[in-house]
Structures are given as structure tokens and as C-alpha cells.
């Protein structure tokens, strides 16, 4: 049954309501039939990439729909986690991680954690991106993993590829947005990568950097507030900001220190600016808010063009009848805010057309907008008022009501000039039914009863008649009017007032009863009424300040512009406050990244150059460094540890290497002999000194237990291809002291020609990104027939990828490559048997690989087995172990590698390898198996 036919069956069958959502689309395949799941299991076991991919996709789809996929759990973990996470195809590795991380079952938390860590140092940036995506998933599944996850985030933040940047910042924002310290070292890189990050990532990064900048840089507008009066406020400038400005003002006055923008602050502004041209409105908005919150006022203007915010764009905000209501309201708000003496006549003319719109909510908003213009711009107040009064004769009651409310507010500003309007409005009370409008009119008449002495009592009479049928707000205003009239004109209104108060006394609404009681006590003198009576007039007829007509969009500017919280004017869950500028700038040097010595980390140089050439498509390598943090960290480390020796120069390296080896165990005589050939003349004293330091350093770090057995030589350049120059290399298994994360490669040059070879050196290394080379120092002269041995370091990043480079003489260049056997990527570690067992216990499950084998004919005794294993891999035997146990750790990342060989009667044996790096583990098993079964 195919997916689509299954679906159409279902559609025909359930006529009531086809629930596409609940019952997943491809019904047949996703049914809870176990046989179907077997299909999926089978697919996962298949050799075909596409089948695996599809099976995993389906599982993700099931999980995404909340389906229980737990019976597939073992199959997924077995097939996916163990096998596919090591798959040579990066897309499969990534998909495997997506599946694994989508399983919401707490028992897999440790496995997920391991998988994420593994993927975070994967060669493929796409896999690392997936790892970043998996972080918030694990965090929501088990928040206790937070600390470990932060470590992964830190590692991924150091990643230099655009693919990873957006995803890891997203993870950062979700898991640890307060750990702003993690950003320091990556700040400049993020700024530089920004333009090439995919658009969704850009939004997240820009928003995060806005917050970062507010904690690290100084307010660029500090000086300006000195020059400028606060009259020129920014569009949405808030009171808070003003206060802040004042504070800043004070501090600057005190300090009188001229403001200089931090270059990093400038970098951010400069690098985000081109993104205003993005097709994605969210990106444009993100940049706009960044400029709004971070840029000097003079520069904020550049966003105006993209957003169309300011005066020259006034007409862009003219409203069409076909605009959606929310757009109309926003445009109206912008127009109202842009109104000034110069453009008010155009704006008012525009507003007039809006009043005739068919959308009544919009008409009401337009009337309020006219009111706001009238309050803000004194010159047009009368014009507006007249216009609004004309609206009072509109047939639409809503229009009239809204006008009354606005007129009331306007009149409060200059009542004495407008008794005509008040009279006009008094007449309206017979017709207007909208309670708010009636209440407004009554309030007006009461407030200005002295201007309309004849009409006011008559209005009260009418109101007394209809009192019982009025709405509550109207009733309150009737009581109010009665009280005011009683105080000013008690002769005519005393009885009316008492009548109203009596009606109110028995009203159903307690507010009204309460008000009536209160007012009666206050205005009608009795024995008990006391002192307040005298002040009643003052209380009721005090001059009231005119109201300020306010924007409905006020009071939300403490939120970051463009955020959900800003839009809703309420803090949404997960909203990160935009901090205030610091009073004094924190140390800017935290953002300094130690610039790696390019001659040492030549892979970097290569990349940097590419960037300079092509700033747009910045990362041109498909696969690049997995752990750039390790990368840069190491460079930093090496330069730090090497700083004291830098005086001695790099030529001391090989001699140091040599001295060190002299201090090693005795069973290395062979090697020693080779090294005797070394040119020892250079800077020997210095070298010895530094070598001593290094030796001590090494001993402390990795108590070397040197392996036994002969060391295999590999050919780098055949003497025929090399035109007489023969080059061989071997993995000396010595720690490479200038950088402990590098594998030491010993290279022996032999000059078989009759003439001197000069200037032997390395050029143009082509490395898988993340890999690094530390070149040997140039050999000036190699005399005819002579040999020389040098040592170089290569950080293979725990992979068996070849390091390619050119070997140059003064005349020729040769392309050569060094590929390490997996066993050379590790270095021995000393472990006691107990420790070994303990560590092994931690590396169970998918980190353990078990294989049965038949020992080869020559593997007769323990000694041979130990020899074979140590020859294959640079490991040391665990002393006094009951089984044959070997321990080591990978050179680059220091992951433990544990090997156990258990022999049985009759030549059978079992090999166990435990290693967190599953790729390494698998390859090592293969190599050791081969060595032992020969």
C-alpha cells in the first residue's frame, strides 16, 4: 500500500473530518503496525544512503507529530547513533544526530550528550550545525545538562564557518543568554561573518550583538545630550532614556572626557549596515533596531530610508481604504507623530478624507488623531475644533460620539472662548445615545456651567427625568453636574439635586450609591458634615489641568525594538532585557584574539588570504576546522609556552627534540643513532636550555612510557622523483614539545646528488581545515651525500586525513603528503589497572567495539601480542594487568583510547577498544585485528 493511496482511502473513509494533522500523512507507513517498524529497522540497516536517510526522516516526522517512537528506540540508537554517526557521509551523520536528538526520552540523555559532543568537533560544518541545533533540544529534555552544554556552545561559538554561526548563537540565546562572557573572544569574528550567514541566523546574531554592545560599549550619544536640548527628542524617545541622558550628562560634565567610539562598536555598526539591503524584512528590522539602540543619533538616519520613518517620507504613510485596519492605525500614528507646524495643513487635509472612510474604527482613530494634532500644535487648534464641531452633525453616531470626547478634551484648554460650542453640545444631549459622549457633554456643562448659566439647569432637569434609564458612567456625571450646579446656582437647582441624589441613593450600582452619599455629605451643610463643607466649591470647581492626548503606542520603548514584547507591550517569556549603557566601558581587551603566528599555523594564513580576496563568499572550503577553538587556543597556547623561547628562534626546535630524546629510555638506541646524524651546531646552548624546560614540561604533562619495537619508515619523496633528493619520514612517537597537540613527524633528507641542495623548506600546505602544521626550520644547505633529520609537528585533528604540502629546494618544488596510520594519532598514557577499569566503565555502549579474532600463527606468546599491538598503535601497556591492556589518548583532543586483548585457548581472542571517538575506535580495531591475525 503506497503512501498516497493510503491517504486517499482514509480521506474517502472518514467523511466526518479528515484529520490530516493527527494521523500523519503517509498513513500506511506510520501505522502502529510493528511490521512497519520492522521496515524502518531494515531500512536503517541497509547499505544505501538514501534508504537510511528516508527511514530517519520518517522517524523524525513521527516524533515531530508526537507519535510514540519508543519501540524504535533500540533500532535507532543501534543503527543510527552507533553506525551512522560515524558514517563517512556528513549528511547521514547530521541526519542521525537530528533523529537522535528528536527522541524525547530521558534515558538517552547521556548518549545524546556524547553524540552532540562528538558532532561538535566533526569535520563537517553541516554536522556541527546540526549539533548546535541539538543543544536546545537536549537542554529542554534535561536542564541539568546545562553546564556541559555550555561547554559545547563555547566550543561551537569559536567555529569559523558561517553555516554554524547562526545556529550556535540560537542555542546560546536559548540555553545561556546571560553568559555574555562567552561572546568576547568571538565578537569580531561574528561581526565579520555576519554578512554571509543565512538570513535567519543573521536576525538572531544581530539581536544578540545588540544586547552585547549595550553591556560593553559607551553610549555614543553622551556628548550630544550636552549640546542638544532635550527638545529634540528621538521619535520614540522615552522618559527613561531622558533620565539616562541626564545621568550621563552629569557624568560627562564631571569627567569632561571626550567620547571616542570603541573600534569594535564601529565594526558592528559598519558590518550590519549592508544588511539593510536584505530581502528579508526581519533582517532589515534587526539592523534598524540595532542602529536605533546603538548608533550615534546622527547615524540613525540611515535606517529611515529602509523603514521610511521620517518626514520626507510623509506621503508614504497616506492611507488607502484597502489597507488592513492595523496598518491604518499604525500609519495614522506615524502621521500624527510627524505632524508639525510646517506640514500640519497637508496632514489635516489628509485626515479629513479618512473621516469619510467606511471603516468606523478607523474613523474614530482619525478623530482622535486630529485631537492630538490640535493639542500638540496650538496654531491649528481652532481649525481642528471647528472641523470637529462640524462632525457633530454627522449622521453616524459613532463619529459624533468620538468627536464629543475629543472636543471635550480640547475645550478644557480654553473654555472661555468656546461657550458657543458648549451650548451646541448641550443641545446634542437630546440626540446622542453613546454613553461616553453623553458623559463627556455632561461633564463639560458641569465644569463650565458659569459660561452657560441658563442652559445648565435645564440640562440637569432633563437628566433628572431620564436618570434611571442612563448608563452608569452617565449617572455618575449627572450626579457630578448636580453637585456643581448646587454649589454655583443652588437657588434654581437645589430641589433637582436632591431629587437626583435620592434616585442615586437607591440605585442598583453601589458605586453610584456611594458617590451620592459622599456628595450629599460634602455639599449639603448639616451639623455633622464638618469642615470639608467649606471647601466643597474649591473641591469641585478647582481648575483642572488640560489633559494630554497621548499616543496609544506610548510606554513601550523600554523593550527592544522589533521584539514580540515590544509589539505587545508586555514581557514575553524568554525576553532578554536590553541593558543600559555602562557608566564606564569594560575592558575592551577581552575581545582581543591572539593572532596566530601564520608561519606556524599556515593553514590559517591560507584561509585569511582567501578572505581578503573574496570577502563576500567568505568560507570557501566545504569542510573546515571542527574545533577552531582548539585551533586558536592551541596556537595561543603554543605561542604562550613558546614565548620565552622565541628568542632562541625556531631553529632550536629540532635540536630540542633531539636533546629530549636523549633523556628517554634506553631501548631507543636505534633512533639515537639516526639522530646522531643531526646537525648539532646551531644554537646549541640555547637549545639545551629550552629543551630542559620542555622536557620537564613534558614529563609533568604526560608521563611518557616509550613504546618498544622498531619504527616504520615511510617514503615521502623517492630519490628518482626527487631528482636525487630522497625524503623519508616516520612517526617518532615522541611528544612534540612546541605543541603537545601535534604529532611529531621525523623527516630525513638525503642528498644523493653531487651538488649541494639549498633552502629546504615547506610551502603552501593544503590541509583539511582545522589541521595545522608546524614547519621545521629551513635547512640552509645540505651537502652532497649528506643526510639530515628534522622534526615537524602536524595536528591531524584526530583524523587520518592526509596533510599535503610542497617540499621546496632552491630549484624545485615537490608535492608531497603525509597520511598517518590511526595508531600514530595517539600517545601513551599511564593508567593503573583500577583506573583503566574505571575509565573503561565510562566508555561503554556505543563507545565500545568488540571483535572476536583468531590469532595469527606467530602470535604465540604474550610478548609477541604486546609487541604487535604497540607497533600498530602508540599505546602503553597497563602494568600488572591481568589481561593485555593498553592505554593512550589521542594527540589532538586528548580522548582516551583503551585496548584490551583477551586470549582464549586454541588461538581464539577477543579485542575490545573503548574510545569516545568512534571513528578512531573503528579504525584502530581494524588495524590491530590485522596485526594480530597475520
Amino acid at each position, binding site marked *: 500500500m*503506497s503512501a498516497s493511496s493510503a491517504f486517499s482511502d482514509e480521506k474517502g473513509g472518514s467523511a466526518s473530518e479528515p484529520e490530516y*494533522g493527527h494521523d500523519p500523512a*503517509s498513513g500506511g507507513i506510520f501505522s502502529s503496525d510493528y511490521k512497519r517498524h520492522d521496515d524502518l529497522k531494515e531500512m536503517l540497516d541497509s547499505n544505501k544512503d538514501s534508504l537510511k536517510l528516508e527511514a530517519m*526522516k520518517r522517524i523524525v516526522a513521527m516524533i515531530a507529530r508526537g507519535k510514540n517512537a519508543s519501540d524504535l528506540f533500540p533500532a535507532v540508537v543501534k543503527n543510527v547513533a552507533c553506525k551512522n554517526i560515524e558514517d563517512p557521509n556528513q549528511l547521514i551523520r547530521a541526519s542521525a544526530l*537530528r533523529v537522535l536528538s528528536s527522541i524525547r526520552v530521558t534515558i538517552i540523555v547521556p548518549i545524546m550528550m556524547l553524540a552532540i559532543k562528538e558532532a561538535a568537533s566533526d569535520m563537517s560544518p553541516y554536522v556541527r550545525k546540526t549539533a548546535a*541545533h541539538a543543544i536546545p533540544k537536549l537542554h529542554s529534555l534535561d536542564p541539568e545538562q546545562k553546564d556541559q552544554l555550555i561547554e559545547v556552545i563555547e566550543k561551537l561559538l569559536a567555529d569559523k564557518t558561517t553555516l554554524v554561526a547562526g545556529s550556535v548563537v540560537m542555542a546560546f540565546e536559548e540555553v545561556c543568554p546571560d553568559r555574555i562572557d562567552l561572546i568576547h573572544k568571538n565578537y569580531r569574528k561574528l561581526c565579520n561573518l555576519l554578512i554571509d550567514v543565512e*538570513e535567519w541566523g543573521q536576525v538572531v546574531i544581530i539581536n544578540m550583538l545588540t544586547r552585547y554592545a549595550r553591556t560593553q560599549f559607551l553610549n555614543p550619544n553622551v556628548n550630544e545630550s550636552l549640546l542638544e536640548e532635550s527638545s529634540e527628542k528621538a521619535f520614540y524617545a522615552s522618559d527613561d532614556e531622558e533620565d539616562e541622558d541626564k545621568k550621563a550628562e552629569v557624568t560627562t560634565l564631571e569627567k569632561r572626557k571626550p567620547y571616542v567610539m570603541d573600534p569594535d562598536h564601529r565594526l558592528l555598526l559598519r558590518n550590519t549596515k549592508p544588511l539593510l539591503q536584505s530581502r528579508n524584512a526581519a533582517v532589515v528590522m534587526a539592523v534598524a533596531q540595532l542602529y536605533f539602540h546603538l548608533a550615534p543619533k546622527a547615524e540613525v538616519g540611515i535606517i529611515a530610508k529602509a523603514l521610511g520613518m521620517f518626514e520626507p517620507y510623509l506621503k508614504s504613510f497616506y492611507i488607502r481604504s484597502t489597507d488592513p*485596519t492595523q496598518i491604518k492605525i499604525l500609519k495614522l500614528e506615524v502621521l500624527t507623530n510627524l505632524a508639525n507646524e510646517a506640514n500640519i495643513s497637508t496632514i489635516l487635509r489628509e485626515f479629513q478624507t479618512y473621516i469619510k472612510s467606511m471603516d468606523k474604527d478607523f474613523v474614530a482613530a482619525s478623530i482622535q488623531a486630529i485631537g492630538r494634532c490640535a493639542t500638540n500644535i496650538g496654531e491649528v487648534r481652532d481649525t481642528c475644533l471647528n472641523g470637529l464641531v462640524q462632525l457633530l452633525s454627522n449622521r453616524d453616531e459613532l463619529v459624533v460620539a468620538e468627536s464629543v470626547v475629543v472636543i471635550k478634551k480640547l475645550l478644557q484648554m480654553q473654555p472661555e472662548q468656546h461657550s458657543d460650542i458648549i451650548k451646541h453640545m448641550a443641545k446634542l444631549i437630546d440626540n446622542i445615545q453613546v454613553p461616553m459622549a453623553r458623559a463627556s457633554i455632561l461633564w463639560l456643562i458641569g465644569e463650565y456651567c458659569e459660561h452657560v448659566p441658563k442652559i445648565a439647569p435645564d440640562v440637569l432637569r432633563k437628566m433628572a427625568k431620564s436618570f434611571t434609564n442612563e448608563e452608569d458612567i452617565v449617572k455618575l456625571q449627572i450626579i457630578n453636574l448636580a453637585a456643581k450646579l448646587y454649589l454655583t446656582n443652588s437657588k434654581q437647582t437645589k430641589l433637582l439635586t436632591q431629587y437626583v441624589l435620592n434616585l442615586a441613593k437607591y440605585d442598583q450600582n453601589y458605586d453610584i450609591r456611594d458617590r451620592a452619599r459622599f456628595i450629599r455629605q460634602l455639599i449639603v451643610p448639616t451639623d455633622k458634615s464638618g469642615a470639608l463643607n467649606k471647601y466643597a466649591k474649591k473641591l469641585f470647581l478647582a481648575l483642572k489641568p488640560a489633559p494630554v492626548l497621548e499616543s496609544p503606542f506610548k510606554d513601550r520603548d523600554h523593550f527592544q525594538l522589533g521584539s514580540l514584547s515590544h509589539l505587545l507591550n508586555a514581557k514575553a517569556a524568554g525576553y532578554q532585557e536590553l541593558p543600559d549603557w555602562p557608566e564606564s566601558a569594560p575592558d575592551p581587551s577581552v575581545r582581543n584574539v591572539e593572532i596566530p603566528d601564520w608561519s606556524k599555523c599556515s593553514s590559517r594564513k591560507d584561509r585569511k588570504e582567501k578572505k581578503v580576496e573574496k570577502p563576500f563568499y567568505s568560507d570557501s572550503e566545504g569542510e573546515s576546522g571542527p574545533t577552531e577553538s582548539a585551533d586558536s587556543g592551541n596556537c595561543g597556547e603554543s605561542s604562550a609556552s613558546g614565548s620565552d623561547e622565541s628568542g632562541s628562534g625556531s631553529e632550536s626546535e629540532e635540536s630540542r627534540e633531539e636533546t629530549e630524546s636523549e633523556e628517554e629510555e634506553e631501548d631507543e638506541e636505534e633512533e639515537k643513532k639516526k639522530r646522531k646524524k643531526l646537525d648539532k651546531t646551531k644554537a646549541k646552548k640555547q637549545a639545551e636550555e629550552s629543551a630542559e624546560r620542555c622536557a620537564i614540561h613534558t614529563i609533568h604533562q604526560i608521563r611518557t612510557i616509550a613504546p618498544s619495537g622498531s619504527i616504520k619508515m615511510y617514503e615521502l619523496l623517492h630519490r628518482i622523483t626527487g631528482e636525487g633528493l630522497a625524503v623519508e619520514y616516520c612517526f617518532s612517537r615522541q611528544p612534540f614539545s612546541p605543541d603537545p597537540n601535534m604529532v611529531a613527524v621525523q623527516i630525513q633528507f638525503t642528498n644523493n646528488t653531487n651538488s649541494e641542495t639549498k633552502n629546504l623548506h615547506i610551502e603552501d600546505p593544503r590541509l583539511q581545515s582545522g589541521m595545522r602544521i608546524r614547519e621545521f626550520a629551513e635547512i640552509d644547505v645540505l651537502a652532497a651525500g649528506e643526510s639530515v633529520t628534522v622534526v615537524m609537528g602536524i595536528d591531524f585533528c584526530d583524523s587520518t586525513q592526509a596533510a599535503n604540502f610542497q617540499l621546496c629546494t632552491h630549484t624545485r618544488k615537490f608535492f608531497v603528503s603525509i597520511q598517518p596510520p590511526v595508531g600514530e594519532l595517539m600517545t601513551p598514557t599511564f593508567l593503573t589497572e583500577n583506573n583503566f577499569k574505571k575509565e573503561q566503565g565510562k566508555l561503554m555502549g556505543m563507545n565500545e567495539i568488540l571483535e572476536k579474532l583468531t590469532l595469527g600463527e606467530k602470535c604465540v606468546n604474550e610478548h609477541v601480542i604486546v609487541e604487535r599491538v604497540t607497533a600498530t598503535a602508540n599505546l602503553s601497556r597497563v602494568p600488572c594487568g591481568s589481561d593485555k591492556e593498553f592505554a593512550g589518548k589521542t594527540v589532538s583532543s586528548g580522548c582516551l583510547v583503551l585496548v584490551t586483548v583477551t586470549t582464549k585457548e586454541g588461538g581464539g581472542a577477543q579485542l575490545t577498544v573503548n574510545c569516545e571517538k568512534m571513528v578512531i575506535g573503528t579504525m584502530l580495531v581494524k588495524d590491530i585485528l590485522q596485526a594480530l591475525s597475520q
Partner: protein
Amino acid sequence: MIHSLFLINNAGDLFLEKHWKSVISRSVCDYFFEAREKAVEPDNVPPVIRTPHHYLINIYREKIFFVSVIQTEVPPLFVIEFLHRVAETFQDYFGECSETTIKDNVVIVYELLEEMLDNGFPLATESNILKELIRPPTILRSMVNTITGSSNVGETLPTGQLSNIPWRRAGVKYTNNEAYFDVVEEIDAILDKSGTTVFAEIQGVIDACVKLSGMPDLTLSFMNPRLLDDVSFHPCVRYKRWESERVISFIPPDGNFQLMSYHISAQNLVAIPIYVKQNISFFETGSSGRLDIAVGPKQTMGKTVECLVVTVHMPKVVLSANLSATQGTYNYDPVTKILLWDIGKLNPQKLPNLKGSLSLQSGAPKPEENPSLNIDLKIQQLAISGLKVNRLDMYGEKYKPFKGVKYVTKAGKFQQRLSEWLLVHTEV
């Protein structure tokens, strides 16, 4: 970020749901339905709706509401842009984005949604990558799939996802190498009753259909690039070259895409291709009114105006219209109160006219609100701004591509107001 997505049609039927994290009950959409009812017009539904535990961010496109469920702070535009991208992807895959096509291709829809978001965060939104992962449906393939039970999941792995140019897949091959560019300009304008321009601007886009083998690097230049104001680009365009040389330099995605959009602001004088003379009046008594609309060419640069349609939103009290048109057909919908006059091609020799009487609800007072008039039109082979493509150069590949540029001008939000001055206004 984005927790779930619900697709709801105009009738209020929820016909598809997808969850990226845990399942959220569809009852959360009740808040949306409430807002939908309140808004009357679907366009007026607030884009962000707050509920006690979630936020609903929605867009309305092709008569479908895309309602997403959000739980935590996220820039609303981020979500809105993403939802539009989803709709565009459907359109790209199925030819149109409608309830029918979505239901017909529900398997692919789910596969697409699964790839587009991971844990609520956008993963693969580039059409080129998606098409490698999930192949668009064809009649043949869906038949084969029905018989064999196979799916649309691509056999090859999407290498584009890994490349530094994610918008282009590797190894593109065509026998005919072609690159077409459509310059499409829309006039947004507000005219007052007499036809004077209150406000006008041009929104332009350049749509491209590029079918070129290999990795071509294209450079498009204009005769008059200074015209362009406020441009935005597809991510493939190099900003720097535009800044410094005013040329569009890019490695194109494969197939159809929008290269850039631009804006020519009101400051430059915008040509208005037609004029409309109208007189709509209502009598104080007798519950009736009169309508007279005439259309004629104004600034057409010698080209023919086609697909001319005039739409009038009538006041609520207008019951019916008894009109006669000298050209085209008219229709008055008494429910939506929309009068639609489809004129077709504008013949400058014989100007079209629509005339007749309107009948109003009996006893109703003369309507105070004003009708508004919207105009739709199309002019082939003309970019009204005068923008002209100068040349297209290709680097990086050896073959000779076939190149073509087409210009079209359309009416965007083109509206004529029919209102009179209301306030007695003194100039300040």
C-alpha cells in the same frame, strides 16, 4: 522558536497541523477564530494574537491563514517572514498555494515542513536545497509512486546544503543555456477626486529564470542605475559591487528566483498611465444615485494599456446598480458591495464609459461615507520608471547563453479617492 503551525481556510476549517516540538492542542486556535470573527475582513485579523500561554502569529495568503504558535520571545517579523517563505515554497512546488494543492500533496507538505524547521528554528529554506532533498511532484512521478510505493525523497544527497553557495546546487547541466529577466514595476498611487496625484511611488522587482550549466557568475548592469532607490537583494548578490559600481554581480540560484526588489520614491515624478473621470452622487430623496465613470490614457509612453479593471467599493446602503458599459462587462455584488468593471484593452480612439443609476435601501439617509475606486492595469514592454537593463555578462563558464529581458508595468495599490473636503480649512 516556532512551536507549531496550523493551516486554516477562509471558512474556518483547520485542515493541516504540524508540530516541531510537543503537540499543542488545536484548541489554541479558538483564540484565533475569535479574532477572525471580530475582524470581519480576513485582512484585518491582527498578525499577533496573545493567548494565556501562547502567542499566535499569522499571515493570510491565498485564502489560507498560516497560524504559527510561539511560546517565547522572538521577533514577530522573523516568524512572519518564515511563514511567507513556507507559502512561497508551496507555490514553487505545486504551482499554486491553495488548500486543494496542499491537501493533494500532503506527504510532500509534511516532508517540506520537516526540513524547513528543526526544533522550531529554520534549517533549509533555500528552494535549491529543498528540491534536492524532496523532489517536486510531477504527474509521472506521482503515478509511479502510487504504484511502487516509493516516495519523493531524493535519491541524491543535497550537496548544496554544505556548500558556501547554499542557493545553488552543484553539477547543473542544460542543453539550452538560458537566462531571462522580468522587470516588473507596480505603481502605488493615491489620486484625489480630480485625478491629481496625492502620492505615487513605484515598487519594482526583477524576477529571474536562470537555467545555466555549471557555476556561472553573472553581472547585470543598468543604463540608469541611479533611478533605483532603496534596493534589496537576493542573498546571492554581492552588496559591495553594488555599492561601488552599481552593478548586480551574482552567482544565480538554479531556476526561478527574485533577484532584487527596489523602490522609486515619490520624490521622482511618477508617470500615471491613465485618468479616470467619475461622478458618483446620491440624491437626498428617492433612495437612488447616479454613477458615471470614464477612463482614458494619460502617460502611456505609446504603449497599450491592457487588463484594465475598475473596482468601486460602494457604501453599504447601495442595493443594486443598473448601468451600461460601452466596453467590457460590469458586475455589482450586493453582498460585498463591490462594483467591478472589467474593461480589458484600452482603445484610445473609443474611450470606455460606464453609466447608469444606483438604487439604495429605501428610507435610508444619503450615505455619508465615500466610495473609493481602485484601478488595475497592465502595460507590456514598459517599465514606467524608465529603468533599462544595459547588459548581462557571464563569467566562469565558456558557453554562450541565451539572454532575454522583459518589462511589465502593473497597477499596484492604485486608488482614486472620491471624497470632498470636509473641513473649512485655513492655511497656516
